[in-house]
Every structure is written in C-alpha cells, then in structure tokens.
C-alpha cells in the first residue's frame, strides 16, 4: 500500500513541532474569522500571504488549510446561537440550529455541528488521500447542462422544503431570483437592473443579504414586538452535551452530509453553500421526524454542517490534482503555492510528494485540533444566550455592521454626500427581512434564490450556447437525465401524495423556519 506509506510519511511531517504550531494558529484564526460575518477565510489568507513569504512552504500551506477548515466550522457558531450566519455555507445551519438554541438545546446543536464537522472532515480528507483522481474525473464530467439539472433539483427540493405554504415559499424564492439578476450579466458583460449605480455592477453580496435578512430583520422584529420582558430564553435545558437520542439521530446525517458535500465541493461550480442546501433537503426527506423540521430538528444541523466541511476538503481535490481553484480561498492558496515556486497540477503529487502528503496529514491533525478546541468551548458559547436580550441584539447589530463594513469598504456619492454603500444595502434588506417576518414569508428561500439563480441561468445559457441553441443538449448525458428525473420526482411526488388524500401529513411537514 503505497498510499499508506506516503500518508505515514506525511504524518511524520505534520507532527513536527513547528507544523503543529502552524496548524494550531490556522484553525484558531479560521474559527475566529468564520465567526465574524463578512470577514472570510479568503481575506485572511490574502492578508497572511505576504507575512508568510519568508516562512517555509509546508508550514504556511498547513496554516492556510487550517484557516480554511476553521472558517467552515466557525460560521456555524453564530448561526446557531445568534441566527447570524457568518458565511453563506452556514445559512442552512441557522434554520434548525437557532430553533434548537432557543429551546435550550444550543449545546447539543453546537456539539453535533462540531462532531459532524470532524467526522466529515476526517472522511473527506481520507477521500482526498485515496480517491482524489476518480472524484476529479466525476467532477469534470459536470458541464453546463449537468449543472443546470443540478440547480433545478436544488430549486425543486429546496422550495418544497421551506415554508408552510408553497405559494409563500415560492414568492420568497422569486424575490431572491430577482435580486440575483442585479449586476453584470456574466455571459455578455452587460449591466442589468443596476439603476446607474456602479456599486451594483457585481450584484448583491450573499453575505450582506443573509446577515441583513437574518440578523437585522430579526432585531427589528424583536424590537417591534414589545416582548422584551415576557419571553424567557432558556439558555440550557437538560444537558449541554448530546444525549443518546441525539447521537442516534445525528450519525446518519453526518455520513449523508459527507457523501453530498465531498463530490459537490470538488466540482468547479459547486461549493459549500449548494451542498448544504441539498443536504438539508435530503435530511428532511429521510427524517423520521419531518414534523420537527422548522422547530429545531437536530438532523437539519448535523447534515448541512457535515456537508459544508466535507466540501471544504472536496475543494482541495481539484486544487491539488489539477491546479484548479474552485473557491476564493482556494484561489489564494494557489497563489500561495506559486509564491513558493510550486505549481499545483497533475505533476504536483509526483514532484512534491512530501509536501502534498504533509499537507493532507496536517488536515487530519487540524481537524482533530478543531474538535478538541471547540468541544470544551461549547459550555462557554451557550452562556451567550443568558445575556439580556436588548444587550444581545445590540451586540448583534454592532457585529453585523462591522462585518459588512469590513467586507465592502466602497463608498458612493448620493447628491454629494458619501454613503457607505454596503451598509446602506444592509439596512435596506434588514427592513425587507422585517417585512417578510411580519407577514409570514420564509427568509431562507430569498437567499437560496440569490445564490442559485445566477448559477442556474448561467449554466442554462452556456449549455444552449455550446449546442448553438439545440435544447436536446440539456439531456446529453446520463448524469443530466438522472438529475432531471430526480427533480421532476421532487416536484410531482408531493402532488401525487396530496391527490391520494395524504395532504394532512404533508401540511404537517410545513413549517415556518425564521
């Protein structure tokens, strides 16, 4: 077993004291930036690149990978406790996680996220070590037509999975799709719906929208409801740790999340957010307790959290084997490789084997460190919820505002007065979030529409352009056909069930997830 020997050598590299230290710095920093909305792993790695210029390649790459893994983990904490997703990949976690936290089950929610992330990170890193080449060829077989079918499947399952009323869910989804049209059209370079504002050329930032709808909207809703003294949030009810039932309900979602996240992370246009949406829909379908979804189902935290960590490892597959960065963080890590004169690609495993296996082994170590670091902190984190609500929400506002300014420092001039554009958008969408809550529309489909809409549109147009307008190209491969069939099943099955008089069961599935 050649791979085992190489991995063993890698572990020897990883356990060198200085590399352990780099991994520790990486995961700590990564967790910290994951917690802050707006400041992501990409920016952190970019800031650190010049600093690491004089360090040795193995050490700094290990640190970068630690930041990446840590960032994926850190985002879940604020999602669960404060309903403020730090990254787009943690949006789904907020749905069930925050409901759990409000019922005093924040501890188990954080624990299943931490352990799920660990399990997924472990399996996916092993996948990176052993089956990277076959995963790559699968991921590359996804062209525009397959992406479009995948997006279609995501739309069908996600819009069915959110909200009590299909009409309200779809209304929210279309609001998101409309927001997704804003900006420069990627295929023709023409600006759409920008109203002459150059700041809108790159479209609405997903993080800004998510933070505004979730955090600002919720703060406004709380402030408007005059309930400050009435509702008591129980910070901790029962054990802070997961009980036997929690374990029983978590382990399958962890594995399913990993199975969904790893290959989707390896796809050039996939990503952690898409895999977390799909994992959420999958858990909802597989769950024996679908009625709990929307009220704090632990599966809805376990699956997506596993999926987003697995997809972080998945991203490294094309990066290491093809030199193909599929996320912003991966692009900067690629720049890091180049800074040390290394060219990731088909030859990297042959020319720099010790470095690559050291990196893979360090990921295993970093993953373990994250678990050790974070599990004991859970007790501390859940105390956040005991902070009196006015203080807590004031804190959330500060947090959200700072994060947004950090992510978008551009200013625009309205009638000669400089305005922080990102902040203006944040407040505007915060009002929208309040309105949606006030009138009972679900929040998440808006964000889902903003993320998936542009991807679906682009894939469809690319596919048709390549085939010079022949629509049969959309079904040109088995993968595409299977995805289409799945999407239609997701659309028609509920209708069929309803016709057979099982509508009652279905309406119980319906929930309101804000």
């Amino acid at each position, binding site marked *: 077993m050649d791979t085992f020997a190489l991995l063993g050598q890698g572990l020897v590299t990883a356990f060198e004291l200085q590399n352990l230290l780099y991994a520790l710095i990486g995961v*700590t920093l990564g*967790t*910290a*930036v994951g*917690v*802050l909305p707006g*400041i992501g792993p*990409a*920016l*952190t790695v*970019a*800031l*650190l690149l*010049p*600093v690491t210029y004089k360090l040795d390649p193995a050490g700094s790459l290990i640190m970068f990978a630690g930041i990446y893994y840590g960032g994926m983990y850190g985002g879940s904490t604020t999602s669960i406790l404060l309903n403020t997703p730090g990254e787009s990949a943690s949006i789904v976690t907020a749905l069930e996680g925050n409901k759990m936290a409000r019922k005093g089950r924040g501890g188990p929610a954080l624990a299943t996220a931490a352990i799920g992330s660990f399990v997924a990170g472990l399996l996916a890193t092993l996948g990176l070590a052993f089956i990277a080449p076959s995963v790559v060829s699968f*991921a*590359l077989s*996804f*062209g*525009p037509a397959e992406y479009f079918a995948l997006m279609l499947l995501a739309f069908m399952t996600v819009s069915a999975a959110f909200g009590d009323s299909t009409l309200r869910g779809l209304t929210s989804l279309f609001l998101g799709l409309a927001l997704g049209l804003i900006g*420069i059209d*990627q*295929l*023709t*370079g*023409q*600006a759409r719906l920008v109203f002459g504002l*150059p*700041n809108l*050329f*790159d479209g609405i930032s997903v993080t800004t929208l998510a933070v505004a709808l979730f955090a600002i909207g919720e703060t406004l809703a709380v402030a408007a409801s005059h309930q400050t003294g009435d509702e008591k949030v129980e910070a901790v009810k029962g054990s802070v740790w997961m009980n036997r039932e929690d374990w029983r309900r978590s382990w399958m979602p962890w594995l399913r999340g990993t199975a969904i996240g790893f290959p989707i992370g390896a796809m*050039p*246009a996939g990503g952690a957010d898409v895999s977390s949406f799909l994992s959420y829909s999958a858990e909802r379908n597989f769950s024996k307790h679908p009625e709990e979804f929307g009220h704090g189902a632990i599966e809805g935290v376990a699956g997506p959290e596993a999926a987003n960590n697995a997809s972080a490892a998945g991203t490294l597959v094309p990066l290491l084997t*093809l*030199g*193909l960065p*599929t996320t*912003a963080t991966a*692009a*900067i890590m690629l*720049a890091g490789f*180049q800074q*040390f*004169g290394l*060219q*990731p*690609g*088909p*030859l*990297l495993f042959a020319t720099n084997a010790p470095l690559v296996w050291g990196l893979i082994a360090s990921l295993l170590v970093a993953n373990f460190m994250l678990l050790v670091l974070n599990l004991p*902190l859970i007790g*501390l*984190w859940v105390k956040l919820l005991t*902070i009196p609500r006015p203080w807590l929400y004031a804190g959330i506002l500060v*947090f959200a505002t700072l994060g947004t300014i950090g992510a978008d*420092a551009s200013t625009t001039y309205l009638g000669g007065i400089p305005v922080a554009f990102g902040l203006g958008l944040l407040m505007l969408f915060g009002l929208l979030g309040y309105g949606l809550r006030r009138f009972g529309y679900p929040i998440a489909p808006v964000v889902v529409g903003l993320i998936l809409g542009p991807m679906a549109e682009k894939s469809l147009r*690319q596919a048709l*352009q*390549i085939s*010079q307008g022949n629509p049969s190209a959309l079904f040109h491969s088995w993968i595409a056909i299977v995805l289409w069939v799945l999407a239609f099943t997701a659309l028609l099955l509920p209708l069929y069930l309803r016709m057979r008089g099982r509508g009652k069961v279905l309406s119980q599935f319906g929930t309101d997830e804000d």
Partner: protein
Amino acid sequence: MKTSLWAGVILSALVSAGSAWAADYKIIAPAAPGGGWDQTARSMQSALQDDGISPSVQVTNVPGAGGTIGLAQFVNQASGDPEQLIVGGYVMVGAILTNNSPVTLEQITPIARLTGEYEAIVVPAASEIKDMAGLVEKLKSDPGSVSWGGGSAGGTDQITAGLIAKAVGVDPTKVNYIAFSGGGEALAAILGNQVTVGISSYSEFASQVQAGTLRLLAVSSDERLTGVEAPTFKEAGVDVSIQNWRMVAAAPGISDEQKATITADVDKMVKSEAWKKILADKGWADTYLAGDEFVAQLKKDQEATATILKEIGLVQ
C-alpha cells in the same frame, strides 16, 4: 463573547502588522483578494519594502466591475496625493468601455506597465484539432461549431478570440464564445470536453500542457516564449499579438516632480532582485515600459480594444 473579542484583537493585530510604520505608499488593488491585480499589488508591496524603497506600503482591495469601482474611488479620493497608487491592467481598458464607466484612464496618471501574461489556445489531448491551421480551417467552415471557453465577457480572452476571427476573415460576431467565471472554471470545461478550445493566460494551462492532458496550439506573444513548445499566432499565420498587461498608475493632479519621484521608485523596484524573484515564481513576463512610450502604447491598446469590442457587439 470572549472568543470573538480575541478574534478582533488577532485580526486587528494582523492588519496593523502591515501598517505599524510611517505610511508611505498606499496601493489600491481594484479587485478581490487572490486575483492578478491583488497579487501584483501585494508583490509590489513586498518588493518595495524588502529593498527599502518605501518603509511601509499598504494594500487596499476595492473590488468590482472589472476594476472600475476601485478606479472611481481612486479618482475621487486620491486626487493630488503623491503617495497613492493604483494597480490596473488591460482588462480595465475593456471594462471601462463595456460598463460605460464614468471615470476613465485619462483621469489618472499612468506610471508604468509592469508585467504581462500571454494568451494561449489549447485543445484537449484527444481533440481532432492538431494545430492552429486546423482550428482556422474549422473556424472558417463553420464559426459556430467552434466553442471557445474562456474568462468573463469582454475580457482579454474574448477580445483575443474576436481578434483571431477577424484576422482570418471570419465575422467576429459569429464567434461562439462561452464566458466562464474565470480561467479556472474555463479550464474545467476544457478538461471535461465541454468546449472545443480553451483560451486564457498561458499560466492557467501550463501544468496541464506539461502533463500532456492539453495540447497547446499557439501563444499570443511576438516572440516564441522560452520553454514553451508552441508557435506564436503570427508564426501560425494569424496576425494577432496581445498581452494581458498590468500597470501601476498614480493619482490625478500630481506635479511633474512628484510623478518623476514615483517613476524613479517604480524603476528601482523593477530592477530589484526581490521583484525578479517574484516574476520568476509567478511566471509573469517582465514587460516593463515606462513614461511616454507606455502612454503611447496605452492609447494604441485603447483604440484597438474599442474597435474590436464594437465589432464583437459588446459595445454600441
């Protein structure tokens, strides 16, 4: 909250690590972290600091709209300030036209062209297209049947594809150009046999070409590139040469002496060992061109770009 406080402390320590000394140059990278302009700005930062040309250099990212957001902010806020610089490049020339940008390169003070990357055309190893002549033949017989995978619309990749079509007598509006979000995504489409040919910077394809999974048809340089076994477009009978250059520019409204000081600093940086090492590591060609020669070249590029973008139909 303790941990998040620490996060703040660590982050601000990181940020201030670059700015603890007396501020000298401030460079705006009008792009997100990780891209070519960001890397150029950060490379300048380390070269200027390492050689003591400037005690401290700060890089700020102002991403968006092909660099025109950063450019607008620079024109508005840096006017007359001899310590502020902006990085830009060929893509900005096209973006200003396609976005109808209210600010243009005429409003800033170009200092020098620093680096360039050449465009390359590749096909999958199994493709029936063996060389540039084969591609030209296919393009002439049915332009739509050749799908070109490259980076975002209106960028260097699409402009090059349009110029090639024009040079061989094919209507540029007939070019079936498929824009992907970036060179990486385009590379995946080429490796996955989704498009006929790939067109992007050579560095995007280098490792695949060396590994033999992609066949390099030609590159866009004037002379053959050392270590690259492919003809130039001109050698292959297509009269096109283009480079995706990157430049540094100073603020509007600075005096001639101030401009001379900045030019001297940049000149010193370009000749430093640190800069040469960075270029070698990143595979960037040294296409340093300063002063009036650069301004003249810039004007030529702007005119040619405006013409081809109109012919492709991206600019009215």
